[in-house]
């Protein structure tokens, strides 16, 4: 038995496939951790996870996006150290990168 080709339903099936794939990612971390007993070791691993995700996401992006972006992220972190405001950090970072890019970096 062979499946009929997707034909005119193709785009909708593609969207549904993406939605399903994304939803599986969204739930599977929570579902899988339900089978892992929360030993102190697992707890320490989970505690280290958010910072690790943030660093692992940001560092390679700095490399990819270039010097202006990297300095903008540092400026945002500095702003966050001085004043704990995400809004201010965002404004500082965006202003910084806009100026750098306008200046041709």
């Amino acid at each position, binding site marked *: 038995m062979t499946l009929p080709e997707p034909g005119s339903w*193709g785009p909708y099936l593609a969207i549904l496939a993406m939605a399903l794939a*994304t939803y599986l990612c969204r739930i599977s971390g929570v579902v899988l951790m339900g089978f892992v007993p929360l030993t102190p070791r697992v707890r320490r691993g989970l505690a280290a996870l958010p910072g*690790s995700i943030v660093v692992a996401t940001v560092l390679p992006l700095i490399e990819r996006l270039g010097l202006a972006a990297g300095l903008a992220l540092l400026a945002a972190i500095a702003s966050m150290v001085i004043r704990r405001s995400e809004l201010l950090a965002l404004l500082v970072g965006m202003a910084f990168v806009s100026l750098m890019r306008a200046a041709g970096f």
Partner: protein
Amino acid sequence: MPSEAKSEPPHAALLTLAGMLLGLRRVSVLMPGVVIFAVAFGAAASAKGLSLVEAVLMSALVYAGVSQLVAMELWRPEWSWGAIVALAFVTVTVNARTILQGASLQPWFSRYPWFVNAFQLSFFTDANWLVGTRYHNEGGRDLGVVLGAGLALWGVWVVMTVPGYLLGALVADPRKYGIDLVMPIFFAAMIVPLWRGKRGALPWIIAGVVALITVRLVDGYAFIIVGALSGAVVGAFLDDPA
């Protein structure tokens, strides 16, 4: 300051309207960035020949910005089953970081009935993970914050896909205003409240180094998951003296 190895005190599984409004407030700094991102996706979708219905449907059902833009690179006029499966596979690799994000908040989420999680996780993204993580670290326990932030961004994301689709050609280069950096800046800023002193830094350094190595060896977004997992494993095996 809450310590990392706390055992969760028993508490009611809170999910309130006040929490949802707090989530909306906390995520609102990201709204301008999400608007521009959604407009950019709408524009890319119309340029690739999707219908308006398809573009809006994708924003509503998938609701994952980077993977939607990647899908536009792979979009085609005719679809075979193979192409659909390949697209789903690429989508998983782009969104695999949400597996780890979900795992990191599971001790909190697990206090709620499965159907609550099945629903709220439909709106789980980078932005409300960051908002939820910070809120939980401050001692907050109202799941409404995560759900409210996710729903608010979802609504904006879906609605703003439309003007992007219709006015696509008029959209200026988002790079010029640094809009492409909104999420990276928000991620970077989050390092500060997550900071737990020098001891906690070792897993992060490992995560960063492994991610930098992985990005050189493997195409795509594997670097996030490989780096973050390495950091978590190191964190798990660092024995606290206390």
